[in-house]
């Protein structure tokens, strides 16, 4: 938790930096005084003075030499003072940015460490608003927390001193009104503070509401409540307007009063100073110098007032943030023993009450057993499952594992022994491997030291920035210095030796759970650099040879292979005429505006005329379709021949090409060629390819390879790599490389067959793990939304199983009697034989091997079971004996209800 006030925060985390800033600031005062003093010397002594030549440090100086010396000194002083200003600004910037980083880190960190459920006291919109927007100005300010008052206050004092040196009476006059200002301004500022507080509160409500609007957009739209929401938003904005209006009015009022008071001062100067000069008690030169110095005074004074305003504004803001952030309770720092997982032992619970669920008996569940939670409301069953996994504290009673209460375990310790699968599992952005190894992130890694809290020499040394050294910079802001791209994994927890074995284990679990396909398929869609992955690319080339050898047996029905003398209708024309694939799939290879080499080669090549003709015809065939479509119509989203909003431009290019091709502009020609180059015949059913055109396109291949490719193939940075049976092509996916062909666009539903075929071959060749590893490296769609819901659940189970939990709660999967659910439970018993499964069952208890059954339907059901032979749920005799066994174990606790 950050300190309560901004001052405490600044002192706690930047004391040495602020001290350094003050020291450098102090250095600048003598220089400031000298810059006032030297001009006086130059005029009075060097220009108007007498008695030259003068001796100066053993040199004899003429008047001109003396003048030059003083002016040179004056000039050097300016350089020095500006250099000092630069150093000061950089120091302030570093300090401010570090404090800002620290504050953001602290605030988000606290939210992440909150006790279970307390995070609901914060809304996402509010947290974003506070950590991103509200903190920003504070960050800029804290760097100059002491620097500005010291600097400006000091400058003010220097000027006062100077005026006092001219005449004490004038000096007094110049400060006469400052006490008045110092009294009135804070008085007026108080209203500003109140308004600021209201504005901050309103801004948070506003961001909350905006976040809710975005989250609930579907619901508001469906119910036709958009206008109502917008009216609410409008009201909030009006509130914001009112507050801001009052705020700036008050601020301008303060400015007005302040200006007025400072304008009164010259009045004193002229009357009092004039009187003193007339009565002969003051030199006219001194009065002019004093008036000049007074003019200089207004600058630091204004800065000081501005600082005061900002200070009070931001202090309020800081205090309000810290106050808001004090809601909820942080997970206590782990006390002794809480951080270690409990010793091996059974899961024991009951009697206990959680949510709507009441367990009347005491149960002891041995490792490897299954707990079926049946009866009662679905929410009650879910709450009990969560509670047995330590995710929801019981309101009465407790659940223990190995004799230790689950609720008392720290987050890291609990994560090592318990897994819980809930509906709609969460998967963060990143690679699939990161999403799956979440359960293995090593909680034992400790935060490194904080430079700001270290010895003073370290703190001063930290005032320089080394952009390369992220770890030192993290320490300077009290951040965690773990490399997020290579997180430390607790391999021992997964019982594997190294990263390779971990991949093997992930794949084995995926196979057991039936989700190996998505992993393998994303591996097939990955791209590798054949130079860096030499052995893998060779193995893949061998597989390619094997696949093409057995090619006749059905592959061609789904894949169109590349043949040197045939057009590939499932590939874009650019690949067809070059008989090559782009090396970088992200680069706009067919954009002739940037790819000048290709452009130059096309110019005058025999195929150019054919391509222009095709481009023009494509535009003619489609331009009319786009007329009358709203520019934002989602129908147009699928249109990718050319930008739909530029249809008129393309149409006129095509017209020009038909009527007067010699007058077609250079960029117009490139546009027509671009449309043709990206055209994939099979994808767009426009009967455009006549035999003559096909012949021209295929003929281009020989020229292309001779012209741009032969020399460039191995050259890094070359745009295209030619298609050859003995080469691995970096721009193509692993799958395309294996097939040396294009998947047929009109056989999309059968593509899976190809994957199965490759999978089989990969297993034979022993490269399936390497391909799967590529899949694990692939970035996932947010939340794995591209997968079926049950596959998402399986991945969540896989993730939980990786850390070999002693208790695995299933709230959702495995809950019904469907074949898939029953198979899942069987699978889990086989893959994790020592794990206790806690299953929320919407159907009856699990048919075989359900060692403990917890029935939440209440006492009536229990009587039924004890009495007649048939229970209302129609369970079998075996189940009843199982449940009775579990009831029998309740004897010691007496089976009394928990009140």
């Amino acid at each position, binding site marked *: 938790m950050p300190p309560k006030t901004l001052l405490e925060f600044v002192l706690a985390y930047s004391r040495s930096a602020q001290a350094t800033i003050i020291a450098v600031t102090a250095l600048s005062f003598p220089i400031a005084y000298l810059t006032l003093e030297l001009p006086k010397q130059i005029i009075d002594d060097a220009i108007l003075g007498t008695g030259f030549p003068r001796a100066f440090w053993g040199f004899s100086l003429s008047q001109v030499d003396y003048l030059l010396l003083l002016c040179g000194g004056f000039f050097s002083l300016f350089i020095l003072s500006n250099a000092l200003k630069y150093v000061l600004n950089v120091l302030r910037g570093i300090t401010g940015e570090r404090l800002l980083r620290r504050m953001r880190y602290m605030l988000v960190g606290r939210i992440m460490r909150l006790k279970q459920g307390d995070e609901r006291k914060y809304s996402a919109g509010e947290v974003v608003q506070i950590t991103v927007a509200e903190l920003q100005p504070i960050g800029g300010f804290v760097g100059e927390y002491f620097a500005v008052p010291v600097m400006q206050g000091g400058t003010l004092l220097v000027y006062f001193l100077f005026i006092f040196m001219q005449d004490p009476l004038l000096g007094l006059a110049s400060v006469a009104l400052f006490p008045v200002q110092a009294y009135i301004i804070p008085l007026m500022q108080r209203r500003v503070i109140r308004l600021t507080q209201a504005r901050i509160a309103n801004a948070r409500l506003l961001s909350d509401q905006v976040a809710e609007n975005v989250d609930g957009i579907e619901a508001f739209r469906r119910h036709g409540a958009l206008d109502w929401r917008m009216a609410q938003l409008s009201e909030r904005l009006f509130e914001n307007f009112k507050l801001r209006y009052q705020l700036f009015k008050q601020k301008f009022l303060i400015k007005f009063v302040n200006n007025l008071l400072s304008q009164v001062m010259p009045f004193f100067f002229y009357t009092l100073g004039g009187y003193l000069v007339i009565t002969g008690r003051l030199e006219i030169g001194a009065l002019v110098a004093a008036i000049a110095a007074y003019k200089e005074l207004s600058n630091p004074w204004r800065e000081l007032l501005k600082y005061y305003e900002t200070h009070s504004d931001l202090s309020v803001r800081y205090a309000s943030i810290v106050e808001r952030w004090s809601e909820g309770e942080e997970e206590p720092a782990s006390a002794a023993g809480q951080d270690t997982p409990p010793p091996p032992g059974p899961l024991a619970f009951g009697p206990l009450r959680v949510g709507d669920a009441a367990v009347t008996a005491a149960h002891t569940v041995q490792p490897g057993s299954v707990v079926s939670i049946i009866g009662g409301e679905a929410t009650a069953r879910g709450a009990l499952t969560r509670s047995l996994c330590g995710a929801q504290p019981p309101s009465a009673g407790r659940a223990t594992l190995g004799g230790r209460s689950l609720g008392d375990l720290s987050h890291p310790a609990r994560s090592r022994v318990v897994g819980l699968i809930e509906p709609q599992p969460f998967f963060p952005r990143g690679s699939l491997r990161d999403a799956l190894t979440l359960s293995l992130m090593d909680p034992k890694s400790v935060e490194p030291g904080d430079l700001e809290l270290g010895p003073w020499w370290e703190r001063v040394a930290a005032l320089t920035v080394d952009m390369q050294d992220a770890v030192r910079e993290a320490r300077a802001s009290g951040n965690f210095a773990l490399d997020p791209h290579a997180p430390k994994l607790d391999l021992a927890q997964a019982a594997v030796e190294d990263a390779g074995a971990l991949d093997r284990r992930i794949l084995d679990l995926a196979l057991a759970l039936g989700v190996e396909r998505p992993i393998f398929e994303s591996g097939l869609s990955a791209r590798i650099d054949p130079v860096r992955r030499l052995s893998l690319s060779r193995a893949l080339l061998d597989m390619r040879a094997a696949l093409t050898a057995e090619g006749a047996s059905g592959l061609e*029905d789904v894949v169109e292979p590349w043949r040197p003398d045939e057009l590939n209708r499932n590939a874009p024309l650019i690949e067809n005429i070059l008989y090559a694939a782009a090396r970088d799939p992200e680069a706009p290879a067919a954009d002739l505006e940037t790819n000048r080499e290709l452009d130059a080669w096309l110019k005058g090549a025999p195929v150019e005329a054919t391509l222009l003709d095709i481009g023009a015809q494509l535009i003619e*065939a*489609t331009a*009319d*379709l*786009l*007329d*009358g*479509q709203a520019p934002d*119509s*989602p*129908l147009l*989203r*699928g*249109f990718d021949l050319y930008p739909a909003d530029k249809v008129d431009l393309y149409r006129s290019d095509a017209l020009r090409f038909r009527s007067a091709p010699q007058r077609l502009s250079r960029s117009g020609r490139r546009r027509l060629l671009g449309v043709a180059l990206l055209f994939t015949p099979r*994808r*767009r*059913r*426009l*009967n455009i390819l006549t035999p003559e055109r096909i012949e021209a396109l295929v003929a281009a291949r020989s020229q292309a390879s001779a012209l741009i490719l032969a020399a460039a193939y191995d050259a890094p940075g070359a745009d295209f790599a030619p298609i050859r049976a003995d080469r691995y092509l970096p721009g193509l996916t692993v799958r395309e490389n294996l097939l040396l062909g294009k998947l047929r*666009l*009109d*056989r*999309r*539903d*059968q593509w899976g067959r190809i994957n199965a075929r490759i999978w089989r071959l990969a297993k034979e060749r022993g490269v399936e793990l390497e391909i799967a590893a590529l899949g694990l490296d692939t970035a996932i769609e947010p939340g794995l939304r591209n997968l*079926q*819901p049950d596959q998402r659940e399986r991945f969540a189970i896989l993730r939980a199983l990786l850390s070999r939990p002693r208790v695995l709660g299933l709230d959702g999967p495995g809950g019904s009697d469907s074949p898939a659910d029953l198979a899942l439970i069987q699978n889990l018993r086989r893959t994790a034989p020592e794990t206790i499964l806690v299953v929320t069952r919407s159907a009856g208890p699990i048919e075989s091997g359900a060692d403990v059954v917890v029935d939440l339907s209440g006492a009536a059901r229990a009587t039924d079971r004890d009495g007649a032979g048939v229970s209302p749920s129609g369970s079998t005799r075996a189940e009843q004996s199982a449940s009775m066994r579990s009831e029998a174990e309740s004897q010691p606790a007496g089976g009394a209800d928990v009140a």
Partner: protein
Amino acid sequence: MSLDQETAALRAVPLFQHVRDKSLQLLAFLAERERFRPGEAMCLTGELGEHAYVLLEGSANVLVGDGDERRQVAVLGPHQVVGEIAVLCDVPRTADVIAADEVLALRISKELLLQMLAETPEMALEVMRSLAIRLHETTQALQAARAVKG
């Protein structure tokens, strides 16, 4: 089959009869064409439906149930729509659709179909009508099946 022919084929589908010419042409242009060999599945029960098909050539059998319970409930031919329920209602596929012979179909994505519905109110009406008819047919089939069993 050219774009014009495909547009004409789409026009013959009751679902699309009220869609504007331009939109229908664009739909025909944007929708991908897909082929199925006899016996290949177009839809499988329980899968999430991300697209619907309009049959252009060939026919497909609609099957429900597993193992012994498996029954053919309909045969679909050219100009008929396959799999639109899962797309429109956001439910898993409700039946298996298996190509009976060589099938050529237009694959229409969920996004595209929903946009067409928003643009053409008559289309929504047509969807309702066809769903109602299908409900009626299903109910009758169910009664017939009960009669046989009973």
